[in-house]
């Protein structure tokens, strides 16, 4: 019982990307938008899809699949843009779907298992086990800084 009181909860937004579940602390999430018209910006990295008009603010969009070198998929009905803020940057992530808000305990977060060896490894700050689910926590700094 005493354990439960001491434990700190982190509220995270959970999203899907190629069969895996990822999480971003809700404090960084500004909102979740449906896919809208993206204006391509020339001479940028391929994972930068372009910019959108987010209620009057021109916001850059990053395709997380391309950022993580995952196979690119077409846009589905469930495709979402998660608007996140980090320091003075505001950026949108294109994800397969976003449908959960969860409280995870700080103690359930573990270091990334070293054998995973996938390409997105460097963007991961840790994993959290929630029963049978495995949430991958993103390292936003690294995702945003090339």
């Amino acid at each position, binding site marked *: 019982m005493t354990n439960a009181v001491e434990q700190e909860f982190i509220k995270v937004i959970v999203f899907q990307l190629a069969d895996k579940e990822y999480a971003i602390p809700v404090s960084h999430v500004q909102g979740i938008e449906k896919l809208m018209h993206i204006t391509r*910006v020339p001479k*940028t990295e391929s994972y930068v899809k372009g910019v959108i008009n987010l209620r009057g603010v*021109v916001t850059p969009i990053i395709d997380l699949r391309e950022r993580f070198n995952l196979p690119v998929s077409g846009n589905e009905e469930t495709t979402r843009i998660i608007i996140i803020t980090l320091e003075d940057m505001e950026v949108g992530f294109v994800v397969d779907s976003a449908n959960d808000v969860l409280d995870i305990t700080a103690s359930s977060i573990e270091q990334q298992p070293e054998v995973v060896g996938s390409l997105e490894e460097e963007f991961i700050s840790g994993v959290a086990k929630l029963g049978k689910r495995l949430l991958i926590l993103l390292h936003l700094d690294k995702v945003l800084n090339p």
Partner: protein
Amino acid sequence: MELNQYLEMFIEESKEHLQACSQHLLELEKNPQDLAIVNEIFRSAHTLKGMSATMGFEDLADLTHKMENVLDAIRNEKIKVTPEILDVVFESVDHLEAMVFNIADGGDGKRNVQSTVEQLKRIESGDTAAASVRTAAVEVAATNITPIDYKLTYDDFEKTVLLQSSEQDYFAYEIAIALREDCLLKAARVFMVFEILEKNGDVIKSSPTVDKLEEEQFDSQFYVAYISKENAEDLQKMLMKVSEVDQVEVKKINNSVFTQSSTTDTSGQVVVEAVQQETAPAVLEQAVVTPTVQKSNGSKTQSHATSKTIRVNIERLDILMNLFEELVIDRGRLQSIATEVNHGELNETVERMSRVMGDLQNIVLTMRMVPVETVFNRFPKMVRQLSRDLNKKITLEVIGAETELDRTVIDEIGDPLVHLIRNSVDHGIESPEVRRGKGKPEEGTVELRAYHSGNYVFIEIEDDGAGIDREKVLAKALSKGVVSQEVANSMTDRQINELILASGFSTADVISDVSGRGVGLDVVKTTIESLGGNISIESTQNVGSVFSIQLPLTLSIISVMLVEIEKEIYAIPLSSIIETSIIRNSDIMNAHNQKVIDFRGKVVPLVFLEEIFEVPRQDAKDDGFHSVVIVRKGEKLAGLVVDSFIGQQEIVLKSLGNYLTNIFAISGATILGNGKVALIVDCNALLK
């Protein structure tokens, strides 16, 4: 850490106070006798000192303190205002400005001000020998006259009243009242103090004046000259009863204060005696009248109009603007829905909404407008200093300081103007001897004008100096290889004038302290052009020159030409477009792997935006024609090849945010009527 949130406010306010200091110092120089001006400067300095001490900028606070001491000595008439003293005070203000700017740039506001501090100290101690031998004797004499203890100064009439009061069994006091630093309603406390005082006697004079006390234009202390039958101790106790009064000091005014009055003031003595011999009871009546006289005097000197404004963070205005654009886009949708549905009342409502939004748009846009005064303000001081340095006599006239410009333009235009004014003062206006020789008045005039015209603001700098020596400019341009002899032969006067804006050009024979440090007028030209404006020069030799700058009203809204490439829409700023044209494939020529066209006899390289922007193309488009936008950067031209022109439009400039920085050839974005983002082409990047 906590202080950080106040830093911005501190910087803004410090700048304002320093500006006020400079302005009042200039006034003071013209009216050295006007102690009201000294009080204004003192107040600004005092506030600045307090603020910087609170913020922990000790150096800033320290220097301000030293300056304040000098000002205090001036307002207590211990020292007299001389140009030399003002020089030192101006220098201090310059240092303070530099410190504040340093803080604004993230520095710690430290600066070596040793020599200035020493000079200030010397002046304060009355020893102005170093600054000026001439005035030294007078200063020292002046210091001996007024005892330090008395804060107030009196004119002859007030002296008379005070002197005579003692003969009527009244006591004359000088009362110093200090309110608590955290006192919230200072004016109310002042009122209560005055009420008590007026019940028991008569207030002869106060410092600051009654008006200023009412407007809370004082720090926490004020002084009152007072006559009463009460004794000092009782008065002190009564006044201490007013809450939030921290300290009350009641000091009796001895007649000796006046009798040992300044040596030249013998006429005053005579008056005193003359009045004494007249009917004594009249004196009290006079005493009652005095405060009102004082009041009207006070209001004359300090009734500067305070415009009611609030400071708003420009970011908030941007947010407001964004929200407003959202509304504009939605209005567009509503309008189209209304036409589809064709419902009478809906149509009416949408129409009314459109009208209101039109007005609203005007207001939102004008909110970012700031009078150019904020920039012009610093020039009188600068010209004063320059003319002293150069031993010239120059007056600066400022006209149209109330003309409004967008805040972003205001921020950028300061440096170019400094350059141009320096140029006029240094190269334009001749020395007094030369001017006399030419039959001109010794004193030169530089006129700084601003006015609106159409969608532009014009700023002009006119001087009645030597004008531009065409032969000299041409010779220099030829020797520096700026132009060839052939080109030079066919140049108009105007073109020759504008050669001085070319890079690496300086007409000064001798490199002076003021200009000719290698930073030429070309920087001015570049800055102005980057703001979407342009500069032209007119000059008549020996009569003077006019530098005329044309600037767009605002940078946040610009006129663009929308063009289409495949399905993508780009905006090209109208300010860099010369014209558009349709060319045939056969018009395109090849020169060194560079496709060029002949545009009015000029060879203009073509830039295929499709290639530059790597536009994905479904199928090749070739109908034998190309749409070309001819753009320029300075003298250089280029033709931007696009698929089609959409048309001219006013757009609101948006930044691409902090994630996407330095995108090649893209200077920003805008949101189109359909809610989509269009990118703005940076023509300067395309023309190397």
